[in-house]
């Protein structure tokens, strides 16, 4: 039945999910992080988040995801999460897991009651995981924190991006997730940074490495994140099955969700960072309903997906496809801000 809702959402462009990049600060230093750590601007205030949530509640938005950088590095992380819960949003947290120690986790459970906390897994061993995070001890800390979260009944999940540094541990990562009792999904491919820096692509798996990863994923029935999400309107591959409902065949960009950066820029998605406006200047209702950017993003991604016909969309060997990553990798310039022109 949820399929019919997704069709309704996308056909009528109903804003359903909002991802808040609370800060680009982070307590880890992941090699392939796509954030532009030099980005700056006037951060949204707590009062502005309150106005935003009031507007989004009125617009019947269901989900709020708190991400970053590391969202817990925001000085008002707990207040923002609590406000979201009080307004009836389904709250999800996307974290590296490093700061999710018992005291913080207890507070999150009490004040935010999140549907899920998603954390990044970079390897199955401390050597591999810590090599990517560039913080010694981050693997052991993550595993310990997950065990605690599980013990108090918090729903958690892990996400991994296959790289040239960790692909050989892919099956061990699946085993580890199973031992922890946590769902693991994968995303990818590695993307350029939002400032156009292509350095992360240095650890893109080779075609052969992707082939090995994909074979394991198929054998172990591991889904990509978008296939496994329970709330986010399914995108990419799943969306391709909605043609009977006349739903645009694309990833949902511009149709059902937005990203808001720490400085109030309202963006079409994490990687396709086309701005529809800024919350310092306009309210979210005006931006979503009047900016042409979202329609342009939807049209562009629909064209991009059309190249695959009925084939499985893929990019760099990954069995997922992101038009923005394709654009950004080609020009290495502006992180999509140019509009791909």
């Amino acid at each position, binding site marked *: *039945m*949820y399929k*019919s*809702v997704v069709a*309704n*959402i996308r056909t*009528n462009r*109903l804003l*359903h999910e909002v991802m808040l990049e609370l800060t680009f600060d982070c307590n880890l230093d992941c090699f392939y992080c796509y954030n532009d750590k030099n980005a700056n601007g006037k951060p949204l205030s707590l009062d502005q988040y309150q106005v935003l949530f009031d507007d989004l509640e009125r617009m*019947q*938005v*269901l989900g709020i995801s708190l991400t970053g950088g590391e969202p817990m590095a925001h000085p008002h992380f707990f207040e923002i999460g609590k406000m979201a819960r009080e307004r*009836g*949003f*389904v709250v999800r947290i996307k974290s590296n897991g490093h700061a999710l120690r018992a005291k913080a986790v207890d507070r999150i459970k009490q004040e935010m*009651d*999140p*549907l*899920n906390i998603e954390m990044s897994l970079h390897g199955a061993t401390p050597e591999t995981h810590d090599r990517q995070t560039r913080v010694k001890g981050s693997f052991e800390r993550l595993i310990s924190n997950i065990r605690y979260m599980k013990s108090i009944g918090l*729903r958690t999940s892990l996400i991994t991006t296959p790289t040239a540094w960790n692909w050989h541990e892919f099956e061990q990562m699946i085993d580890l997730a199973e031992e922890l009792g946590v769902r693991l999904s994968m995303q990818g491919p590695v993307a350029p940074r939002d400032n156009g820096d292509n350095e992360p692509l240095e650890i893109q798996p080779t075609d052969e490495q992707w082939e090995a990863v994909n074979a394991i994923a198929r054998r172990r029935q591991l889904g990509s994140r978008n296939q496994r999400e*329970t*709330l986010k309107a399914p995108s990419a591959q799943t969306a391709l099955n909605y043609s009977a409902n006349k739903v645009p065949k694309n990833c949902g960009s511009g149709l059902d969700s937005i990203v808001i950066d720490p400085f109030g820029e309202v963006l079409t998605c994490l990687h396709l960072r086309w701005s529809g406006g800024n919350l310092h200047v306009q309210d979210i209702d005006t931006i979503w309903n009047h900016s042409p950017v979202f329609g342009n993003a939807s049209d562009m991604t629909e064209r991009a997906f059309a190249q695959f016909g009925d084939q499985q969309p893929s990019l760099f060997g990954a069995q997922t496809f992101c038009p923005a990553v394709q654009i950004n990798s080609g020009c290495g310039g502006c992180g999509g801000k140019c509009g791909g022109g």
Partner: protein
Amino acid sequence: MQHETLNISSRARFRSVGSEGVVVQVERGEVMVVNGVGLRVLELVKESGSRSAIIQQLSREYATGSANVAQQVDDYIEELYAWGVLEQPETGSGE
């Protein structure tokens, strides 16, 4: 069992999506889709929390007899309890 005072669970969230409603039970991680009437009942529970007020309101809105509405509302309320979308209201501590 008939419940006169109704209360949305603190673990449940819902929103309208066009003419339908999406309900999420956070504790179970389950998503449910309800039709327009089901959504309206949830909105009325949130507004008034009174079973009889909900039945009266729906009878007016759908121009149908309250006995018929009452039976359907009661069945639906039982389902909502089973889904964990409704919970018993907290009782006062001054006994």
